[in-house]
């Protein structure tokens, strides 16, 4: 499997990750070599093998839906890049 510069750009967009133009070629090369390595998986027939998501095959534990944590808005917002009146600020989204 080989990826070209355009593939890298579209994957980077999906990941919301800026890749500098001058590095695109390098990423295309290294991603292609990783995908080549991964290709080895295709040599094995896995028909009827159940995918393994958890080493002990346990399922998600659930608990009663009750409030356990106190609101710590101020503590959490102290480490935020930009807040105002208890809200997180981002560039304007809706005109």
């Amino acid at each position: 499997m080989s990826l070209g510069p355009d593939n890298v750009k579209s994957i980077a967009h999906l990941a919301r990750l800026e890749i500098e133009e001058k590095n695109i070629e390098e990423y295309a090369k290294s991603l292609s070599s990783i995908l080549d390595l991964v290709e080895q998986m295709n040599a094995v027939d896995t028909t009827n093998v159940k995918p393994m998501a958890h080493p002990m095959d346990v399922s998600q534990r659930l608990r009663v839906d009750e409030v356990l944590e106190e609101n710590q808005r101020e503590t959490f917002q102290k480490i935020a890049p930009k807040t105002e009146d208890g809200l997180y600020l981002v560039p304007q989204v809706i005109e």
Partner: protein
Amino acid sequence: MYHTKTLSELSAMLGAGEVTSVQLTEHFLQRIKDHDAQLNSFISVTADQALKAAADADEKRNAGNAGPLTGIPIAHKDIFCTKGVKTSCGSKMLDNFESPYDATVVEKMQQAGVIMLGKTNMDEFAMGSSNETSFFGAVKNPWNTNAVPGGSSGGSASSVAARLAPAATGTDTGGSIRQPASLCGITGLKPTYGRVSRYGMIAFASSLDQAGPMAQSAEDCALLLNAMSGFDPKDSTSLEKEVPDYTADLNKPLNGLKIGLPKEFFGEGLNKGTDEVIQKAITEYKAMGAEIIDISLPNTHLSVPVYYVVAPAECSSNLSRFDGVRFGHRCEEPKDLEDLYKRSRGEGFGEEVKRRILVGTYALSAGYYDAYYIKAQQLRRMISDDFTKAFEKVDVIMGPTSPETAFNIGEKSDDPISMYLSDIYTIAVNLAGLPGMSVPAGFDSKMPVGLQIIANHFDESRLLNVAHQYQQQTDWHKAIPEQFK
């Protein structure tokens, strides 16, 4: 001096009143000050906090409320959230992040009376096998400062090997405790998946990550694992399973122990010098009464390809939380929300992290999910089944931890694939969720070689017993690099 003692010995000295926690803490803080410039094993040193905690620990001891770890100073890998202390995960993304809460591992250690000396350097977001991907610079191996310490828990391994801390915590997603332990000549244990809480341990690949102790001996690891382990309702993958006393079985004789040697761990790619050291260790085990059985783990060769689908897929999903909005790095003057996301992430993450996010995003994208992630999970089961079959015949599996001793800084940093292959013997253990250890077994051209021991799920006690008995017969684990004696 204190730093030449194991954690267990220091614990006994504290108990006998031969030393105070303040004295120990001062001693190790001084060693960090004197020696860490050569190694770069710490990202943060928390001296004031440590000395205060040490004084508290001494008071607790005087009042008769001390446990075996009360007053013992250790270091935490910078992947564990520590309240009010920078928790960078080796990344520019979190260079300004002071965690608002403690990881469960950190909290449990605190409850046991352990003193935190500081936070150790690591590969960025634990993605690496050499500690060269850290935003805070490469860590050096105390046995040869031109060589890497291994990764991703390279700072923990290097600091313990140089005796700047009696022990440290680490995390292991594909070998990140065992491989650096091997390359630095210390003892490291990756517990069964679900044994130790992942709460507050910054996630890389959630179905593989597991925290564990890195120390000078199996006995030290047992003491630390006692304090670290246990069910945690805050971690949805934590398992409700009783924690035994891991020191209880240390002295059991190894008569009749069945050791499996997978032929796949001794084939092409294994360095000759490393092989010789491992063979000698196995001979030693025979002399202790163990029976050696040849086994096969036929899907071993698939573990690296499977890992490089599962781990990047999970990392791309986990790392999507770093968006420049709530915490961490944010770019200057974003022109819109998309620009904010893209540039904050582009600037905050290093090259290897970006590479893995891209691979993972691709593997999970529409139309590719089945071909990559599902296929990898199917093969993961086959790899895991190999171990299940093997453990019907043997008690533990042994082999090298790493195919070679520590390589030089820069030697593999331009070639991700050759770097990935250095974890060939450790990765399958994570895929199967098994506990594994690396134990110092000798030297090849003056560099340490680690013996890997793998046990069945939740059989950490046996692992520690098997390692401890070896350490009663050998003194490789006691070797200290010349310039750090």
